[in-house]
């Protein structure tokens, strides 16, 4: 089962792939270090530029950016008390007080070592758990694949928390976008309005760039961030090999937080910020000196950073095996796989083992690279990034977005379409509509429709074909559990609260 994993290693060690990984990690740290920019945005802007690249080079860039950005978010969290990424919120609790007393350099080194530890643990989890799971999913027929798609959509809507109606609206919108273009079975046009550009449907990259890249750019321009009070000039950084022995006492926190991060990563809908918060709370609970937490306890930084990096590769376990991403970034990565002709899901491991296992190695190497690229010298340089003029940065990103979307088919129609999705994405973002269900709806919508109609053809139009075997019934039960579970939990909590009051 794991022989493919070993066989894919030489390809990953090719110079081009390693260079892509290094560039990706550096770019990820830079992006993560800038508040307002995230791994999700960086990867969505990057995806169109990877068209002409070899799949492993493209995936290496993405894996590098994901790993790098998760650590990069700690830089402004420690120096400015502003998390560079949502997952770095818990890092501000102890990182910023450390920077205030001149230990910002040590806080960032704890962050980088912990991030690397979390990333390595996550990559191992992906390598160990994904192959056996993919074997099970290979047995799925059209009916089961349809239910997997429904389960994926339901889980991301209902487990994401927040307003369920808004989550469902997002998913319906995504699925509707997926049906634009030629009908997969009959070949007739749907919602193309006689535009030839829409015949092949709406390319996922157009939607990704519009939804995930445009709103942050507008935010950058809306409220330029003041960084004058940054603690970046007084980091007090020592070489990492000298400070490393001081970190060894965090080993229990590293292991506990890595396990929490991996578990949260696998759960669809949960993300790095939830992992970081849970891990921080658990580490604080287990600490002998909980009173020092929140006042500059380096173990707090270790707990949060280990967990938010441990969720990276783990989020790809359901994404690669079932086509259900655990996080928004994983959803974008699925889009990245699709543009290279790699359909995430059961067949991916059978048809493209060299690429999928190579991708796993890249996650592992990306996590290890973090220590070297985000070490003591680089930490000082990355801290200077906070002084980059943000309006200029916003303008450059706009140009890159246009180039990326235009280069897909070489036509301005796609750029205008991206603008439209950007406007919709901005409103959705501000009104707290979750964006991952839109992407997942677009990815799984067409997939679900094709398999549903295929199953119906096999069953000669009889809908009972969808419920005819045990696997389908298990998937239906899981879907019902995912939908009903949070409602029951909510009621129980409410009932307990009322009982408490009485």
């Amino acid at each position, binding site marked *: 089962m794991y022989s493919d994993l070993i066989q894919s290693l030489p390809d990953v060690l090719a110079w081009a792939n390693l260079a892509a990984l290094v560039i990706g990690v550096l770019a990820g740290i830079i992006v993560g270090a800038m508040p307002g920019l995230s791994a999700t945005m960086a990867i969505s802007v990057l995806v169109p530029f990877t068209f*002409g690249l070899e799949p492993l080079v493209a995936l290496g860039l993405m894996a590098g950016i994901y790993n790098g950005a998760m650590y990069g978010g700690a830089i402004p969290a420690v120096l400015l008390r502003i998390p560079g990424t949502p997952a770095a919120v818990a890092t501000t609790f102890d990182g910023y007080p450390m920077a205030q007393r001149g230990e910002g350099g040590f806080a960032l080194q704890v962050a980088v070592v912990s991030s690397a530890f979390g990333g390595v643990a996550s990559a191992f989890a992906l390598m160990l758990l994904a192959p056996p799971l993919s074997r099970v999913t290979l047995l799925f027929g059209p009916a089961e694949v349809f239910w997997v798609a429904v389960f994926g959509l339901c889980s991301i809507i209902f487990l994401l928390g927040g*307003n369920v*109606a*808004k989550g*469902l*609206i997002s998913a*319906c*919108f995504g*699925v*509707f976008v997926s*049906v634009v273009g030629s*009908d997969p*079975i*009959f070949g*007739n046009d*749907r*919602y193309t309005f006689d535009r030839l550009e829409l015949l092949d449907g709406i390319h996922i990259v157009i939607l990704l760039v519009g939804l995930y890249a*445009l709103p942050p*750019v*507008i935010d950058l*321009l*809306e*409220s*330029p961030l003041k960084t004058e009070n940054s603690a970046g000039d007084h980091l007090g950084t020592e070489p990492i090999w000298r400070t490393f022995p001081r970190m060894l006492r965090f080993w229990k926190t590293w292991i506990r937080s890595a396990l929490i991060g991996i578990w949260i990563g696998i759960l669809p809908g949960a993300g790095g910020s939830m992992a970081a918060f849970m891990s921080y709370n658990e580490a604080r609970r287990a600490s002998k000196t909980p009173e020092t937490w929140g006042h500059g306890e380096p173990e707090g930084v270790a707990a949060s950073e280990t967990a938010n990096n441990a969720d990276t590769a783990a989020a790809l376990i359901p994404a690669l095996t079932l086509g259900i991403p655990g996080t928004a970034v994983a959803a974008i990565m699925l889009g990245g796989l699709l543009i290279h002709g790699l359909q995430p899901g059961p067949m991916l491991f059978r048809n493209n083992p060299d690429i999928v296992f190579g991708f796993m190695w890249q996650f592992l190497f990306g996590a290890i690279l973090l220590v070297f690229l985000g070490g003591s010298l680089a930490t000082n340089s990355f801290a200077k990034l906070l002084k980059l*003029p*943000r*309006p*200029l940065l*916003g*303008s*450059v990103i*706009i*140009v890159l977005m*246009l*180039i990326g979307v*235009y*280069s897909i088919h*070489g036509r*301005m129609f796609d*750029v*205008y379409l991206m*603008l439209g999705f*950007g*406007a919709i994405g*901005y*409103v959705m973002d*501000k*009104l707290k509509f979750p964006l991952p269900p839109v992407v997942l709806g677009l990815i799984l*919508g067409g997939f*679900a*429709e094709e398999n*549903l*109609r295929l199953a*119906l053809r096999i069953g000669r139009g009889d809908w009972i074909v969808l419920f005819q075997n045990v696997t389908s019934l298990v998937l239906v039960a899981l879907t019902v559990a995912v939908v009903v579970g949070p409602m029951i939990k909510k009621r129980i909590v409410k009932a307990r609260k009322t009982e408490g009051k009485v």
Partner: protein
Amino acid sequence: MHNKSTHRFLRPETVTAVCIIVVAAGFLIPTTELAPLSALLPAAMLVGLILLAIAMMISDQRKASAGEEAKPVVKSPKRVFGAFCLIALYCIAVDLIGFYPSTAISLPLVAYIFGYRDLRGLAIATVIVLVAIYLIFSVSMSQEFPIGLLWAE
């Protein structure tokens, strides 16, 4: 997206719900011309959108009746609107006068308007970005950019 809506029907969520209902209903018209199996998924999604938008509107109106204030959607609507307009204008300019001229104008212009006033820095950044794009995309990747409808004609 008005921030301080005085009327309960101008609350951002209600306005959004109405927009969703109108657009989804509009898309239902061409759906009726599709073959039944072809229309199944899109029709289900459109009807779902309408029902969910109604649910969202009712929930928002209940909040309004309970006296709950609608949260502001944007911090500075003028800047957001301005940013959208400038991005749209940039795209139209690329279409009309070509990629390089419009980028040379809009890159420093957007940065200047939104608060970066160092003219030397703007000039250097614009030159670096344009040269980098030319070398990376036009020279090494042979990527062709729009030359502009005005010049093409």
